[in-house]
């Protein structure tokens, strides 16, 4: 696990399509936003998928198996400007921190922090996304 720290995630780009913004805004139980604005709750998956990876791949890289407990610790999202439909965001990301500890039930867990940066086509920062997941290791040695 410790070897993951500093590992860059593939990197890539993402555009929020109108249909996607419409459906996800509806899923957030929000009114549709004006002027092509995208709901800011997009940030989580735009960061992950835009960086050329998926939630499943992040689980796999952390050695998580089907049925394992994965829980969220925190999100820290910064918007330098609003997200918009059909605007290309270039996304870079990496694993920035790992901590091994024991949870409330006395089970081993690995906590992994991921950080992503979204830039526009001119290289200007649009948003920063950090989050930490706890990977439960109930009954086995960790990778």
């Amino acid at each position, binding site marked *: 696990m410790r070897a993951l720290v500093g590992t860059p995630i593939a990197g890539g780009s993402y555009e929020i399509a109108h249909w996607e913004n419409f459906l996800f805004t509806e899923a957030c139980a929000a009114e549709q936003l004006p002027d092509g*604005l995208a709901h*800011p709750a997009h940030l989580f998956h735009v960061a992950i*998928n835009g960086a050329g990876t998926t*939630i499943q791949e992040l689980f796999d890289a952390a050695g998580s198996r089907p049925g394992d407990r994965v829980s969220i610790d925190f*999100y820290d999202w910064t918007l330098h400007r609003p997200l918009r439909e059909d605007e290309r965001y270039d996304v870079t990301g990496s694993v920035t921190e790992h901590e091994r500890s024991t949870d409330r039930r006395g089970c081993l867990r690995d906590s992994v922090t991921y950080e992503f940066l979204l830039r526009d086509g001119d290289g200007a920062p649009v948003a920063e996304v950090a989050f930490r997941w706890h990977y439960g290791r109930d009954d086995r040695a960790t990778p």
Partner: protein
Amino acid sequence: MRVEVGDVIPPFQLPDGATPERMRTTAAILRDPTPLHWDREYTRARGFEGRLLNQTPLNMGYVLNMLMAWAGPTSVRRIRARFPNVVLDGSPVATGGSVVAIEEVEGDRVAECEVWCDRDDEVRCLVATAWVTLPDGDDVTPR
């Protein structure tokens, strides 16, 4: 009316709670493989009595809805959140918040807000600090 420290932010309420339909849409858009969001047998086997667990980006979405309705759709600058409990399908959801500080940032008035999201009127599922750019003249939506 000028926004002041201690002002209460009008809540966002979702009386019908998180729904399986919105969770399924979100799972597809996020490419989230976790069965906790769409498989009742899976959640029953894990002690949730067959109720589905809402995705945390949706819980963020509810708080963001509240902030955008209050200060405008481009107002949110940063949000830092933790998730002490899960939101389950069918539970009524409500957000709340208040202004804890105001500062000038590059010519903008920025409100630091303590915000939260509760289920069933009592279970706190999200606690966060958010920074919001106040509109010109502090023209926020009043409580």
